[in-house]
């Protein structure tokens, strides 16, 4: 393992300190917790809280700020944060009209956030939740813990963040969030694995000429392993999967996110976007919003994911473009 770190066990604490220091004009950390909250407050507006295991930087703390999240709860690397910390985040975020929890669909996250929700409700705070499960690599069946939540979560932060800032109610935002999740799908490919600092070795192995489709952001197994292909062919595979899942029509409006998984340079992300552009044009989709960058990473995994959102609500494109002030959304 080759990393610029100190003790593997202190990665989370040191990272959060460095993060808070770097962005102290925007946000603060609740001492001795993984809770990062924005200093900007607006009474009477719904607050969004997200979080999960760390290792996905800039998610989620990078999206704390005006127009996006009110707070993020950062767990140990690849480990859901605990209910007491999530409760702290809910309390610091609430501006009197309730808090929406945005949870990626992992058993650990769901259980910890739900417990926090129960605790917060006992303290009289109105809390709702939405569960993001955009990864279509895994089927949602009785044989799995459901689909996983991945890069699309960032778009959920963005769209619902704008809705919250516009003054929508908790119920309205929750409903919008659920509709959004239903219209959002992601699929990815890894070309090299991630190494959790405390583990010290890669979470899985890929040969020098191998890649794997559908790997999760914690290195969960994908659906097919094969020889590495040119970007064009990877784009065809991912778009084909998404097409089957969406069953889209010519002229449909979509938003697109090309997401780097951590160690993949922008060069590759833009080359992939170029291949994608051609395919989306062939499909005659109308792309109202595009984004490229490493927004939901898996430590130092190399690879990319592709997220599409069917823009069934015309406000979503505006919300995606709505100005925000955060550490990571440009």
């Amino acid at each position, binding site marked *: 393992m080759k990393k610029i770190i100190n003790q593997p066990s202190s990665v989370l604490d040191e990272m959060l300190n460095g993060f808070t220091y770097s962005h102290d004009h925007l946000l603060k950390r609740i001492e001795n917790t993984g809770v990062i909250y924005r200093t900007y407050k607006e009474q009477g507006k719904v607050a969004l809280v997200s979080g999960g*295991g760390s290792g996905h930087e800039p998610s989620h703390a990078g999206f704390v700020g005006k127009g996006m999240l009110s707070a993020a709860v950062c*767990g*140990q690397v*690849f*480990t*859901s*944060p*605990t*209910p*007491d*910390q999530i409760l702290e985040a809910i309390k610091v975020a609430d501006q009197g009209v309730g808090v929406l929890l945005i949870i990626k669909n*992992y*058993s*650990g996250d769901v*259980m*910890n956030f*739900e*417990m926090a929700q129960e605790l917060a409700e006992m303290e009289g705070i109105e809390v709702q939740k939405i569960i993001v499960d955009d990864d279509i690599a*895994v089927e949602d069946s*009785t*044989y*799995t*813990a459901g689909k*996983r939540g991945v890069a699309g979560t960032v778009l959920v932060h963005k769209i619902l963040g704008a809705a919250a800032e516009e003054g929508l109610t908790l119920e309205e935002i929750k409903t919008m969030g659920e509709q959004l999740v239903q219209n959002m799908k992601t699929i990815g490919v890894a070309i090299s694995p991630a190494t*959790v600092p*405390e*583990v010290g070795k890669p*979470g899985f192995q890929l040969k020098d000429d191998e890649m794997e489709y559908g790997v*999760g952001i*914690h*290195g*969960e*197994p994908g659906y097919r392993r094969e020889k590495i292909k040119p970007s064009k062919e990877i784009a065809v595979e991912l778009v084909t999967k998404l097409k089957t899942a969406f069953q889209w029509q010519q002229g449909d409006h979509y938003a697109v996110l090309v997401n780097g998984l951590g160690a993949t340079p922008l060069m590759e992300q833009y080359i992939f976007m170029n291949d994608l552009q051609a395919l989306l044009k062939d499909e005659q989709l109308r792309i109202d919003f595009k984004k490229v960058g490493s927004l939901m990473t898996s430590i130092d995994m190399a690879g990319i994911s592709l997220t599409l959102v069917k823009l069934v609500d015309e406000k979503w494109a505006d919300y995606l473009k709505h100005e925000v002030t955060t550490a990571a959304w440009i």
Partner: protein
Amino acid sequence: MLTVDHTTNWLILFAKKIYEKKDYLNELDSAIGDGDHGSNMARGMKAMEEKLKDGQFSNVQDVFKAASMALLSKVGGASGPLYGSAFMGMAKQGGSDETDLVAILQAGLQGIQLRGKSAKGEKTMIDVWIPVIEALESESLSKEIIQDAVLQTKEMKATKGRASYLGDRSVGHVDPGAASSGYLFEAMLDGGILNE
């Protein structure tokens, strides 16, 4: 009957087992999960041990409650809320009746199942809890039965937790949460709870 001392002793023995087996539990979790179950549990055990050593407990309920809070606030992941809910259920039951160990464990199991929405045979920790409670009821609980229950998870296909993403490939590996629950019950036997 459970006493504060017995219960504390049991949980501290549990912590010791977890420390010893931390790497092994991580390895089990590497095969079918994300490789952190040992680290997660060890982190929680450390917090639990501190609470137990510091605390003055007037009843068994408070011991279990302290354990629950320690695990809930330090473990995270899936096992944090699951063990946390187990001990919370045990605390509640212990509050009304400290004598009935079977009822206490059943309340713990129920805590896990309510939280995890899991059923028997899904290759999780409850595949150890269920046979252990059954054996306790029929007064036949032994280390073999515990170890056997843990091993049985090897041939199961996971349909809950991270291991479920592996589908058929989860078969052939012991479930890490089942293994850690196995240590919980071994510690219970070692602590001599049943002999009282």
